């Protein structure tokens, strides 16, 4: 039997996203607060009533309860009439999977409004389409809850000003908003991937939901694009390695230390399929390049048998397409594998550590690793100490401690 508690969490999150999107579309995004309250109340009632046993039809139970809560609240606002009740009845009884998906897509494109920043986009998506609470979002992004509340407030204000949800059948709307939508999903996935910590079950969930939402975009013929397949491929190929990134003590393992036999072959196949579908257009985006790099890693039988020359070539294109310090570090490490430690060090030495990079622990860890390979333990110790000071969670900190221990520090 499947674990009923995991099924309840799944159901709660799904109904949260589905009902909020439906209510926001029907009553307008200015009533997002109302939608949120209604669904919160319905789920609280479910929590209370289900403690001593599940109802026969859990989904229908939530939908019916949400409808009653909605009507109660509309009555209170003196906005309920027979028409509204009938409309809610129809909307809830006949909510087809297609309509549900279309409601959620309208929400996603509305939340990624140009006037709001990327972090706010992610916060809003996590809240309304994935059902994360403000405290959980704050925890994942290591900011305080007040910051998340402010972002949610700003987002709701903006939607209120807009008056209606985005029209996802309008190709101009899709073209304008899609880049922000994809960036938001990428940010969300990345946080799940980099922030992995065994005390933080929320992180794998971030990766799972980013992939789920990317595939929701792909299921809509008007929205689907090769570059979304590339993004989905990237998510699958990275997620396939997720469970092997930490050892039994929750410490980060480097690529060389990961147990390749435990990589998720199903996800790798799904990623490869998305990658082949991403080749349909003539556009080469950063998602294509990053997915191609991830595929090289995921399909290589061992670290030594990895096609480093192809990876370096892909990184060179990525440096032109989408330059960033993170890309430079990946490039330098690949160069070190292909052309030797000295070439890798030279590439890292070209980076300016005074700016953004200085606060990025992986920059110091990458330099440390190359110093170890070059046979300079003293320099490596110093660099790992700097990385450790910048570590953002215990999994990262413990990984650097382990390296320091190996170096006899």
């Amino acid at each position, binding site marked *: 039997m499947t674990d009923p508690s995991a099924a309840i969490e799944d159901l709660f999150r799904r109904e949260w996203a589905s009902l909020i999107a439906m209510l926001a579309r029907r009553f307008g995004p200015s009533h997002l607060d109302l939608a949120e309250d209604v669904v919160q109340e319905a789920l*609280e009632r479910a929590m209370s009533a289900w403690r001593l046993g599940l109802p026969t039809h859990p989904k229908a139970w939530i939908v019916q309860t949400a409808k009653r809560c909605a009507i109660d609240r509309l009555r209170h606002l003196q906005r309920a009439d027979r028409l509204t009740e009938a409309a809610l009845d129809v909307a809830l009884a006949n909510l087809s999977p297609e309509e549900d998906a279309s409601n959620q897509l309208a929400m996603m494109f509305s939340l990624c409004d140009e006037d709001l920043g990327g972090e706010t986009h992610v916060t809003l998506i996590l809240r309304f389409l994935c059902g994360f609470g403000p405290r959980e979002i704050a925890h994942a992004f290591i900011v305080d809850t007040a910051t998340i509340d402010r972002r949610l407030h700003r987002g709701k204000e903006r939607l209120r000003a807009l008056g209606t949800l985005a029209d996802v059948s309008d190709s101009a709307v899709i073209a304008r908003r899609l880049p922000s939508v994809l960036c938001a999903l990428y940010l969300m996935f990345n946080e799940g991937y980099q922030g992995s910590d065994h005390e933080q079950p929320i992180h794998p969930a971030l990766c799972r939901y980013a992939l789920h939402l990317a595939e929701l975009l792909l299921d809509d013929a008007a929205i689907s694009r090769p570059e979304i397949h590339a993004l989905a491929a990237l998510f699958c190929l990275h997620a396939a390695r997720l469970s092997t990134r930490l050892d039994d003590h929750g410490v980060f393992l480097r690529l060389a230390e990961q147990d390749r036999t435990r990589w998720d072959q199903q996800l790798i196949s799904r990623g490869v399929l998305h990658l082949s579908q991403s080749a349909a257009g003539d556009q080469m985006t950063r998602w294509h390049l990053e997915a191609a790099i991830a595929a090289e890693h995921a399909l290589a039988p061992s670290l030594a048998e990895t096609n480093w020359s192809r990876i370096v070539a892909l990184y060179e294109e990525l440096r032109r397409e989408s330059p960033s310090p993170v890309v430079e570090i990946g490039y330098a490490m690949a160069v070190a594998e292909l052309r030797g430690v000295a070439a890798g060090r030279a590439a890292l030495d070209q980076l300016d550590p005074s700016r953004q990079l200085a606060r990025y622990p992986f920059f110091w860890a990458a330099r440390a690793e190359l110093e170890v390979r070059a046979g300079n333990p003293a320099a490596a110790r110093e660099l790992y100490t700097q990385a450790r000071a910048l570590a953002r969670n215990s999994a990262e900190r413990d990984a650097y401690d382990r390296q320091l221990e190996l170096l006899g520090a």
Partner: protein
Amino acid sequence: MPRFVFVFRGDSADPVTLSPAEMAAHVRAWYTWADRLRAAGHDPNGIPLERGGRTVRGAGRLVTDGPYAEAKDLVSGNMSITAASLDEAVELAKGCPGLDLGGSVEVRHVAEHDV
């Protein structure tokens, strides 16, 4: 084996708002608790209660809406179990997950007909 009834009061996390995952985790904690009681032979049988209802009062059969108790005093369900003694039943009640959300459990001995 003597029977006892747990009367659960208070069932909402007010004023803390729980996320969907936290609410699901709370339901899960109740199932785990009931499973543990069942495995230990305490034969738990629960009845959850909806929030609303009516009250019928006195010889005049006066019907009123409600119960209108404070959320923390509202009976939200009960469960009958078997235990060797009141003390054991109280120990078992301490495992109730509702306590973590500020609820309470009243432990009552079921009156026995045979003496």
